[in-house]
Each structure stands twice: as C-alpha cells, then as structure tokens.
C-alpha cells in the first residue's frame, strides 16, 4: 500500500511526462497509424508488403476497440496549405477515453486516422465528442443504419459496434445529424480499411488516398456559412495539396493497390500519366475488373484499383485529378495531385523497437494515466515509429499506436508491455518492459 506522498510523486511524475509529451507530441497527421488489432502472429505465407504500416494479416477474427475523439483543431492541428493559408478544421483523433478527451495527446487530423481492422473482427468504436454540437459517425459499408442523434455536444459519448464482414476500402465520416454535412466538409472523415482474411495474390503494396476539398470561408466560420455557397479553393490528397502531397512509393515490377476514398462533396476523376489502373471494386464491393486511365468516384464513394509498376527504378508518374483541380486557391500548380515513384526491390531487414518511457520496472497506481513512449527504426525506411503496436500480456492490445500511447485502464498486476514495430515488408521487431500496477 503506497503512502499518499509516494502516490502524489508518482502522479506528478506521470503528469509531468504527459505534459512534456503533449508539448512535444508528434502531430498525428499520418493516416497510416494502425490501431490495436489481434496479437501479432507469424505470417503464414510470403509477407504481404504494404506501404501502410499495417499489422500482419491474421485469419483469426478478434474483438477490436477503437476510441475516437471529435475535436476542433487548435493552432497545433490547423492545416497549412502550400500558400501558407492556415485552415482550422474539425477532425477525428485516436484515443479519447470516456468523458472528455482531455487525456488525449493526439491532435485532430484531416483526414482522421486510418482505421485498419481484419475481416471478421467485431469492432467497437467509442466516440467522444468535443465539438459544440451533436456528432455521429457513419461507417460506410458496415451495415449500420444512419445515426441521426450521435454524441451530445461538449463531452457526450456514444458507441458503435459492427462486424467487419467484408474486406475492402470504406469511408467513415460524420453522420447525418442536422449539421452533418458541414461537419464532413470541416474534416470529420477518414478511411476504414478491412483487410482480407486471406493474403491477396494480386498486389504486394497498398496506399490509401483520401480525397477531399476545403472551402476556407466555411472553415473560418462554419456556423455562419450557407452551404449553397460551398465553393472549394483547395483540393487535397490525404490532407495535403500539391506540392505537399505524399509521394506514393511502390517497388519496381510489383502491383500497388490504390485505395481511393472520396470524402469530398463532389465527384473526382483520378487518373495517371504513363500508367493505367485496373478498377476492381467500388464502395468495398468487387466489380467486374476493367482497365482505365482515369476513373470517376462519386461523392462519398471509394474505389480500389491495381496499378502495376514498370521496372524502371526512380521513374515518377503523375497521379492527379483529371477534372484539373490542380491549383491552390488559383495558384498553379497545386491541388489534387501527386506522383507514384518506383522504388528498388531490396532485401528487407527487420526493424528494431525501443521503449524510452516509462522506465523498466516502473509502478503505477491503478487508474493512473500511464503513457508509453518509444521509437521504431529501420534500415530501409526512414521511420517506422508510427507502426508501433503496444500490448500487455495481461490486458491485450493497448488502445492507440505509434510513438506515444496512453492508458489508464491497465489492470492490477505485473505487466509485460511489448512494443512491436512493423516495416513495409511486414517484418517486425519488438522489445518489452515490465510495469506493475498496484491497487
């Protein structure tokens, strides 16, 4: 039994760590963060190489819990366009335990975090709403009727459960509460990926491409904005406008699965120069596959295409909106454009993981917020910290992923906390510490 003094010291320490981490926390802008899934098992076939830091596919369905917060950005989370215009957003972020999202160090992002689950998973999503109006979530393709009520303003919560029966690419976004249309346009949307139970033979890497628009007049004053005046000035892929868009990397001679998600309010036609794409699914439903160069996605629609890379390492191919939204508020060239770049196929080596906090053999009182910090390093890739998955041998996966995760629900006992990094070749590296939770 700890004395109050010691408790206070531990609490102060924990708070100090939290404060330090809040200030220095990496911006959760990458859409490739993977939330907790079933414990990792060894791949049963040749590793599925993925550009996204997705966990290894396991055929065993599991229970998955995802906690999301709906928040307005503060200066940290505002978007900055290539012309330096700062755009406030509303966005989802990872984390957000019951009540008030105050314990979340993550910052709302546009798009929201990419949620990756496995086919067959029973998924529970807890939404905590920090906005000043009701917010619900629509998980497209998951069999849920529309939620027109949602979580109440300023701290309300609600929960969604569904079984991710069908593999594919889906959009999740603010649902049809009375202000839902504006909420989607403000940034409350993201990609939901349901990985197939069996490894695909047709592609070895994949890339999520969330398409969206921004009307800066709406974002400056959503309450006063008339949606009849909606006139986007910025056109984004994964929350960035060219030249800030991510380059899509894919190894020579391999096939890339492009997972397009049109979170915008209008249709977009995505095309390639020098390559073509085989359209294999829309809205997460397989279609008779056909080849095209540019194909149009309706508003809110998703599309999966296969793009085969030529052998020329270093070659770059434009991937862009053939409706020619290629400007940043009128300044060319910008907008909904990026490049696919062919990378070399080199022998992959596993990453390494390290845990920097808390110290090994630390102890906390049950209910304390414990924040784990770590990094993932890889010889072939710049940084695999975003892929870090944290598990407790007593409680299972810890909500969140990446270099910083927090939890206050560790059960009493002595935990082995393992951090596992995964590279784009699905090789892993782990390390662990021991943490004790006292009553």
């Amino acid at each position: 039994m700890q004395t109050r003094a010691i408790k206070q010291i531990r609490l102060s320490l924990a708070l100090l760590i939290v404060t330090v981490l809040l200030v220095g926390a990496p911006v959760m802008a990458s859409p490739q963060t993977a939330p907790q899934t079933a414990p990792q098992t060894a791949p049963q076939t040749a590793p599925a190489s993925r550009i996204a830091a997705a966990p290894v596919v396991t055929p065993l369905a599991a229970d998955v819990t995802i906690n999301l917060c709906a928040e307005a950005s503060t200066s940290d989370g505002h978007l900055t366009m290539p012309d330096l215009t700062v755009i406030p957003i509303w966005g989802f972020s990872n984390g957000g335990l019951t009540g008030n999202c105050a314990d979340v160090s993550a910052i709302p992002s546009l798009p929201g975090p990419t949620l990756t689950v496995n086919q067959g998973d029973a998924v529970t999503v807890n939404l905590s709403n920090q906005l000043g109006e009701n917010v619900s979530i629509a998980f497209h393709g998951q069999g849920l009727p529309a939620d027109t009520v949602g979580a109440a303003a300023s701290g309300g919560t609600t929960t969604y459960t569904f079984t991710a029966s069908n593999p594919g690419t889906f959009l999740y976004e603010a649902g049809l509460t009375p202000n839902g249309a504006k909420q989607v346009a403000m940034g409350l949307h993201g990609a939901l990926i349901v990985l197939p139970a069996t490894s695909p033979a047709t592609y070895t890497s994949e890339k999520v491409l969330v398409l969206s628009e921004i009307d800066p007049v709406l974002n400056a004053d959503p309450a006063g904005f008339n949606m009849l005046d909606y006139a986007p000035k910025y056109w984004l892929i994964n929350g960035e406008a060219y030249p800030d868009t991510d380059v899509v990397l894919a190894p020579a001679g391999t096939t890339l699965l492009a997972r397009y998600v049109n979170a915008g309010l209008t249709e977009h036609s995505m095309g390639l120069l020098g390559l073509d794409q085989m359209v294999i699914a829309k809205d997460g439903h397989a279609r008779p596959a056909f080849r095209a160069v540019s194909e149009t996605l309706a508003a809110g629609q998703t599309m999966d295409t296969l793009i085969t890379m030529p052998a020329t390492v270093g070659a770059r191919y434009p991937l862009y909106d053939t409706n020619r939204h290629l400007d940043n508020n009128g300044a060319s060239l910008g907008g909904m454009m990026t490049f696919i770049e062919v990378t070399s196929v080199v022998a992959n080596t596993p990453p390494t993981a390290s845990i920097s906090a808390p110290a090994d053999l630390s102890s906390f009182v049950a209910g304390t917020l414990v924040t784990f910090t770590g990094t993932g390093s890889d010889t072939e890739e710049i940084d695999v910290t975003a892929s870090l998955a944290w598990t407790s041998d007593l409680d299972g996966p810890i909500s969140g992923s990446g270099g910083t995760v927090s939890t206050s629900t560790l059960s009493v006992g002595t935990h082995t906390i393992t951090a596992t990094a995964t590279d784009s070749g699905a090789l892993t590296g782990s390390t662990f510490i021991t943490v004790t939770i006292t009553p």
Partner: protein
Amino acid sequence: MRPDLTDGHTVHFHGFPNAVPAFDGVPELSVGVPYGRSYTYYYRPHDPGTYKYHCHFEDIEHVSFGMTGIVFIRPAADDKWAYNDSSTAFDREFALLLGEVWTQERWEGAHIQEHDWSDYDPDYWTINGRVYPDTLEPNSDPMTTPAIPRLQYQPISSLITCNSNDKVLLRFSNLGFQRQAMRVDGLTLRVIGKDAKFLGPLAYDTDTVDISAGETFDVLFTAPTVTTPTTYLLYNRKLAYLNNGGLPGLGGQMTEIRVSPSGVPAQGEPNT
C-alpha cells in the same frame, strides 16, 4: 400565373430504342404541338426497363420548370420482375425521379424575365417533386386537398416501407442537370439495370447510385431481417445539396427506408 404563355409542347420518351423522329418529341426535328391542339404519340415498347419522359420544346426551360416524369415498361414474363429474368423479381417497387429547382428562374418565369442558363445554380433538390422531409409524406390526389395542403400538386411519395427480407426495387431516374450520389447507409444496393438494359452478369453491388442527368438505374435490395422497426436513410451524398435553400438542417434529395419485422401489407401501386 402566366396566361400570356402560348408555348408549344412535346413529349420525348427518353431512351426509347430505335425511336422514329415523328414520335420522339424533338420539335425542330419533327413536330411541336401548338397551344390548344392535341397530338398522339405512338409507341410499341419492346424493351422493359426504367425510362423517363419530358418536354423537348425549349427543353432547358420546360424540363427545368418541371415537365418531367418517369415511365417504365414491365417485362412480358412477370409484372413483379424488372426484366425478363427471375433474378430481377421484387416484392415492392418505388420510382424515384430526381430533379432540381432554381428559384431564381422560377421568379423570372413568373415575372416575364429572361433566363441566363449559363448561370444555372439550383437551390432545392427533389425526389418525385418533393424535398425532404416532404418526401416522407404519403401519396395524395391532386384533385383533393391533402393533410399538408401545400403538397397538393406534388402528390407522389418517396417513402419506402417494407418487411424483413422483402426484395425492393428502386427505379432511379435523373431529370435534373446535375450528377448526384444517392446512397444508403447500412444496406447494400444491387444495380441490375442501367438505362433500361438488364446488366445480367455485369450486375454489381454498391452503396452509391452515381447518377448523372439523363441516366436511369434499376436497383434491388433485400431488406435485412429486423426484430424491431429499423430506418435507413437514402440520401444524396453531395452534401452541399442536402439542404432546403441553404437553411440549416437536412433537406433535399433524402428519404427513408423503413423496415418492419412484418405487417406491411403487400404493395398495390408503386410508391405505396
């Protein structure tokens, strides 16, 4: 309101295969029907499916002002099939004609002003001539005053009701000028026909009916097994259009699919 108007009119059966100009309704290429006269159009339909009909006399104005309707042809094999194929069997069918209203042009029409069509900018979006939530109101008879009197001349309901496991056919037809993205959250739609052609092996599942001006789609869904009444929203995901005149809240091209465990009587007419 405009007793001075003496426009001619025509009827164009949109999509009728191998049409002859005399009965195709394009006045410059055949005939227009003068004010006060009548003309008979003759058709022998060979091809089942969902089409539409509209005036083609000064069609930008006349279509935009509402001279529009859905027409569908039943297959010879069975009245409760969409095409001559048993896989297209349905228990209930609903016609959903999409349109838009540009109030500025309506004001101009009422006040004898010209229109600049290149400024086309609608502010209301309709299914069967009504905006949400009027789309949920029952059918009425234009010759009598309905429960909501202002809907007397918009008599067609878009409310979809069915029982668990019912097969429901939605006949989408777009006579607006814009592309719309009609989707349902929580149900899978199966597109079995496009432009009055049975897709056969090319039928596909979707969540979104991506429908441009002039297209039609035949969409089947099987209502899930529910234990309590469950409501699904069918709505236009072009969210800048999902309002009434820009006012707060939801409006426009939206309706509900209400699934009951049982008890919804067999359907007589479409859209009931």
